[in-house]
């Protein structure tokens, strides 16, 4: 068992830190306050190869793995850069899905564009009546000649305004309680296809990517835009879940580190009675407790990514990391806010945007209850709870 990073991995971390430090904290606070997309930062991510980091070199990517993506993401988060959705949407739902399940033609066409920033992705699974239970998807794709025609509605779709393609989860066979998993099919859909309409949702977080309702009205998609096989879309879908969980966990660990560091600095300096508040156990121990928890999660996260890159089972580690990173991470950020007193609740202190956004990781892309259901059933071998 080796815990030290390679030279390459150390460089990844320092490159991420340097890039993040090129953007002042004020930049993120302003963007989050104005609900404005941090384009300048995203452009630098693309230009410096981060979006294509896990795409093989033959398709124009960096040829690295999930471990490197995760190391970079954690470091971005450590510096307060909000990269959670940036990595899950295009590199994971776009890049990894196509890489693992795309046809050779799809890979040749899409991967280089993903790596060079020309093609961004959004992901459409959630529907008003199908969230945690994706099998209940009612968006349909019916065959018409060489095309499929999609009809239905998705909700809470992040970043369709920034994307060129959407990975859409549809049903090509009606829901059959006896064969629930059959009949799901994935499509790579151009977001400007005729028949797609969107309407912005008001989500009370200061997220950088906006959320939309997306309506499909007879949207024609060529059959070659199917990802994976017809009716068997659950296979590519489930395959991206582990990396998706790891990106969520990375975001949580990074933000928690950022918040803990900020709170510690403040606690060492701020004097309320005659000594710095950091010398009171009531302030110090919760932060120490969070430090211990996040250190443990960070290790588990790297293990999950390591296993994924080796092609080994990693569902247990990925799910546990996402669960603990969001629970302990939220707790850590909340404690950091508490450490900073009333100032902690101002935007200027820099924690409110983090506090709101880390809350999201408990719910999306998958809720923590569903993660526990996975651990109960697949790790502990207990009866299916739903």
């Amino acid at each position: 068992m080796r815990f030290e990073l390679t030279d390459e991995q150390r460089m990844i971390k320092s490159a991420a830190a340097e890039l993040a430090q090129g953007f002042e904290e004020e930049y993120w606070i302003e963007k989050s306050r104005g609900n404005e997309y941090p384009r300048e930062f995203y452009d630098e991510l693309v230009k410096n190869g981060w979006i294509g980091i896990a795409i093989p070199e033959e398709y124009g990517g960096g040829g690295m793995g999930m471990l490197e993506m995760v190391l970079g993401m954690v470091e971005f988060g450590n510096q307060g850069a909000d990269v959670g959705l940036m990595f899950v949407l295009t590199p994971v739902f776009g890049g990894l899905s196509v890489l693992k399940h795309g046809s050779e033609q799809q890979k040749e066409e899409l991967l280089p564009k993903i790596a060079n920033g020309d093609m961004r992705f959004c992901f459409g699974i959630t529907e008003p009546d199908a969230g945690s239970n994706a099998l209940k998807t009612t968006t349909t794709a019916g065959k018409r000649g060489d095309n499929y025609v999609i009809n239905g509605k998705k909700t809470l779709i992040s970043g369709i305004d920034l994307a060129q393609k959407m990975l859409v989860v549809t049903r090509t066979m009606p829901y059959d309680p006896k064969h629930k998993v059959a009949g799901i099919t994935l499509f790579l859909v151009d977001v400007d296809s005729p028949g797609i309409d969107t309407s912005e949702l008001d989500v009370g977080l200061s997220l950088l990517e906006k959320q939309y309702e997306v309506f499909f009205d007879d949207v024609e998609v060529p059959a070659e835009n199917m990802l994976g096989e017809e009716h068997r879309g659950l296979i590519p879908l489930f395959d991206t879940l582990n990396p998706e969980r790891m990106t969520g966990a990375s975001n949580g660990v990074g933000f928690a580190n950022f918040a803990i560091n900020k709170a510690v600095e403040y606690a060492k300096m701020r004097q309320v009675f005659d000594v710095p508040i950091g010398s009171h156990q009531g302030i110090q121990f919760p932060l120490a407790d969070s430090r211990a928890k996040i250190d443990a999660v960070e290790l588990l996260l790297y293990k999950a990514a390591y296993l994924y890159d080796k092609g080994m089972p990693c569902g247990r580690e990925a799910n546990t990391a996402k669960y603990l990173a969001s629970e302990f991470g939220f707790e850590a950020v909340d404690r950091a806010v508490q450490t900073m007193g009333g100032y902690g609740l101002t935007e200027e202190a820099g924690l409110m945007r983090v506090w709101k956004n880390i809350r999201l990781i408990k719910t999306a892309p998958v809720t923590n209850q569903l993660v526990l259901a996975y651990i109960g059933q697949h790790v502990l071998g207990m009866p299916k709870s739903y």
Partner: protein
Amino acid sequence: MVDIIVCVKRVPDTSEAEVIIKDDKRAIKDADLTFDINEWDNYAIEEAILKKEALGGKVTVIGVGGEEVNEVLRRCLAKGADEAIRLTDPAFDGSDGYAIAKILSAAIKDLQYDFVFTGAQAGDDSYGVTGQMLAEILGIPHATMVTKVDINNGTARIRRELEGGLEEVDEINKPAVFCIQTGLNEPRYVSIMGIRKVSKKEIPVKAAADIGISADEVGEVGSMVKLEEFSIPPAGELAEMIEGTPDEAAGKLAAILKEKGAF
């Protein structure tokens, strides 16, 4: 075509860290500090790469120190430098700016180059002398506080920052040493593609004997500055905030300065 050598130093980032002096008073505790390329050198390497990209040629980076310096050298390679050399020897320990200049010159004199770039100073000891001394030892001209470099047919037209906001423009023929000031370009970030390219690249190492320098010319014995001890300046008296409109504040300030004998 232009061949440029850039000398880079690895320094601790003390901008926000708490600096603690070791018991022997001759060093600071660095176990908890993060290290990186000296800020001035980061501009120097960027300038060299920009020149190479525009004119063709080669950029070589040189660092002095143990294996930990490789990280800084690799970063330069990842950004676009072509070669790196690490100079290391137990005898080099404790070298001041002068001894470092001797070490660098010993390595550089055998290399092919048109120009040498150094940072104008290092963020840790802030001596700001190494580049000039290096030029003297090599017997070639130098310019300090360089804020612009244009190279044309082996002649460099450079701009220097002077006191009081003045600037000076000079033309200097190759070979020459330029001590680069911050802010003359926008250093690029290290990219994933760059990292991929260099992570397995071996960085050649040269010891004192390899560059033909003897142990008594370097390290503490070969230095002109003897470091006695570090100390942290005592915190000053409470600062006085001058309030009022700009006119009133200026008046009060003038009165204070007069009282203290400033004019």
